[in-house]
C-alpha cells in the first residue's frame, strides 16, 4: 500500500516538473516569436525607408538635372527622330 502511494507521489512530482518545464519552454518559444515578429516589423519599416530613399534618388527633377548638366542630354529635335513602323 505504501509502495503504491510512493509511486503515485513520484508520478505527481514528475508531472508537476513536466508542467513547469513545458511552461518554461512555451515562454521561451513565445519570446522567440515576439523577437521574430519585431524583426519582421523592423524589416518592413526599413523597406519603406529604402523605397523612400530610392524615390528620392530617382526623382524626376534630379534625373532631369543630371541628364542635362552632367551627361549633356537633351530631347531630340524632330530632324533626329526616326519612326519605326511595324511591317503590315
Amino acid at each position, binding site marked *: 500500500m505504501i509502495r503504491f502511494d510512493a509511486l503515485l507521489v513520484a508520478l505527481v512530482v514528475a508531472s508537476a516538473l513536466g508542467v513547469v518545464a513545458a511552461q518554461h519552454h*512555451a*515562454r521561451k518559444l*513565445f*519570446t522567440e516569436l*515576439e523577437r521574430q515578429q519585431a524583426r519582421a516589423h523592423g524589416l*518592413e*519599416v526599413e523597406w*519603406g*525607408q529604402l*523605397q*523612400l530613399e*530610392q*524615390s*528620392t534618388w*530617382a*526623382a*524626376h*527633377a534630379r534625373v*532631369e538635372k543630371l541628364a542635362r548638366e552632367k551627361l549633356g542630354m537633351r530631347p531630340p529635335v*524632330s*530632324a533626329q*527622330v*526616326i*519612326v*519605326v*513602323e511595324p*511591317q503590315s
Partner: protein
Amino acid sequence: MSKQRPVTFNHNPLLKRELPAWRPRFVLLALLGCSLALVGRAAYLQGINNAFLQAKGESRYARVIEVPATRGRITDRNGDMLAVSTPVRSVWAIPSDAKLEPADTRKLAALLEMNVAELNDRLSSGRDFVYLKRQLSPDLAERIAELKLPGIHQQQEYRRYYPGGEVTAHMLGFTGVEDKGQEGIELAYEKILAGAPGSRRVIKDRRGQIVEDVESIRPPREGEDVVLSMDGKIQYLAYTALRDAMQEHKAKAGAAVVLDARTGEVLALANAPTFNPNNRSNLTGAQLRNRAFTDAFEPGSVMKPFIVGMALERGKVKPSTVIDTAPGRMTIGTATISDSHRMGALTVAEVIQKSSNIGTVKIALQFSPDEMWHLFEQLGFGAPLNLGFPGETGGRVRPAKSWRPIEQATMSYGHGISMSLIQIARAYMVFARDGELIPLSLTKVDGLPSNGRRVFSPQTVKEMRAMLETVTEAGGTATRAHVAGYRVGGKTGTALKIEGGVYTKKYVASFVGFAPASNPRLVVAVMIDEPTAGGYYAGTVAGPVFSRIMEGSLRTLGVAPDKPLAPLQLARKPGEVATATQARENM
C-alpha cells in the same frame, strides 16, 4: 495525613487567585471573536468576492498593449512611391527627473540641434511632461537613447514623407502630426489609407519582457495602399511647364490637368503656386489652393465649341455656313458685345478658328435658354464631379428661367457662367471620345469604362475636331499650341476676371485641347490666372504650356505620331531611310 506534606504554593494565601469568574471567559470569547472575524474576512476575500482581488493581481503583470497599424502608401500608376509613412521618434522629458550634468546637457543639445539655454529652459519648466523635439530620425533617436540620460524618454510616431515634394503636393494633400489626412487624396481616401490599430492583452515578467499572449482583443487592420491614376512623369512635365510659364508671364496662379481620353483617368493635376508637403511651415492659403478643383472661373471662349457642336447636332448650321460678324459689334437690349477685331463674313469653322464672339452669339441665339441650359447640364457644368476630392466646386450655372437675352448671349462665349478647370477638361472629352462623356477617376482604372453618356453624335464630333484642329494651324488663335508630329485640336479662352461683381482689366488665359486628333488619346487643359508680362492672350500664354505638356505626355505614353514631323524619317529596313512623302503614303 503523612508527615511529608509537599509544599503547595497554591495554598499560599499570597498567591491565591481572586479573579472574578467572567474574566477568562471574556478573554476566550474575545479571542474566538477575533479569529472568527479573520476567518470570515478570509472566506469573503477568497470565496465570495474574489474577482476584485484577482483582477488587481493580474493588473500587476498583465498589460493591454496597442498594436499600431501603418498608414497605406500612395503610389502612382507605375508603382512609384508618392507618399510613405515611416516611424520617427519624439523625445520627451520629465523635468523633475531630468537632473543632467552640464556635459550631458551639451551632448543632448548638440544631438537635438538646440541651444543649451533653450534646452535648459525646457528642462526647468514646472510641467510633468515636455516634448524636447518631435519627429526625429531613428538613427538620431538611437544615439540619444545611448546616452542613457535620466528622465529623458522617447516615443514612436509616424511621419509621412512625400518624395515628389511640390510636384505632387496638391494632388496628394498631406497629413497632420497624428498621421490623419487633412487635404487632397490623403483626406479623400482617409478611410482606406488609415487602417485601425489593434490591441492585445499580454503578461509581462518583471523585466518587462512579454511572456504570454493572453488574448488578442483586436487585430490591427493595416492601411491599404492607394494606386493613383497619376503618371509621375506626366505630372512632373505638367508641373514644370506650368511653373516656367508662371515665371515667364509673372502670373498670379495657374493650373493644368491631363486626362486620359480612353479611360477618364486623371494623369496629372498641377497647380501653382505650390508648397513643399515635407516642410509646411510658413504656408499661405494661396499655396494650398488646388485651383483645378476648387476655383470656379469664367472660362471665356473655351465654351464656344459646345454651342457650335449643338448647332451642328441639331442641323442649324454646317461647318461651311457663312455668318456675317460685321461690323464687329452687336447690341442686345442695352448691352453691346464686340469682337477683338473686325472679321467680316466668316464660316462656322472660321468662327471657331478665329474665336469670334459675335459669330458664336448669332449661333447661340437660335436656341432657347432651356436648350442651352440642358446642354450645360449634360456637359456636367453647375454640379461638382463628386470625385471625393475635398472642396470640389461645381461652378455656377443659373437656372434658364432667369436668363435675360444678353446673358444667354454672353454665356455662349463663356461669361456669366463659371466652372473649374477639371470640369472643362472633362467636358472636352466629348470631342476626344466621339461624343461620349465618361466619369473621371483619380485612381487607376482597369479596363475601359462602359458607363458613358452620349452628348453629341460621332458625325458632329468629327466635324468639330476638324474645326478645332484649325485653331492650332496657320490663321488660328493658338498656333503656338501645335505639337510636332501630332495633329492637335483645341480652343483658347481669354476671359476678363470679375472682382466684386465688376469686370476688371485682369485676364484668365486658358487652353483646352486634345491629341492626336485622328484618334484622341489625351485631353490637356491649362489655365493661367492674371498673366502680367509677355502678353495676355490665351494663344501666347496658355498655348505653349499646352504644347509642352502634350508633346511630353504623348512621347511618355508612346503614342504613334499621326502627322509627319518635318522632315520625318521612317526606318523600315536597316540602312534604308524613307522620306516624309513616303511616310504619308504609308499611313
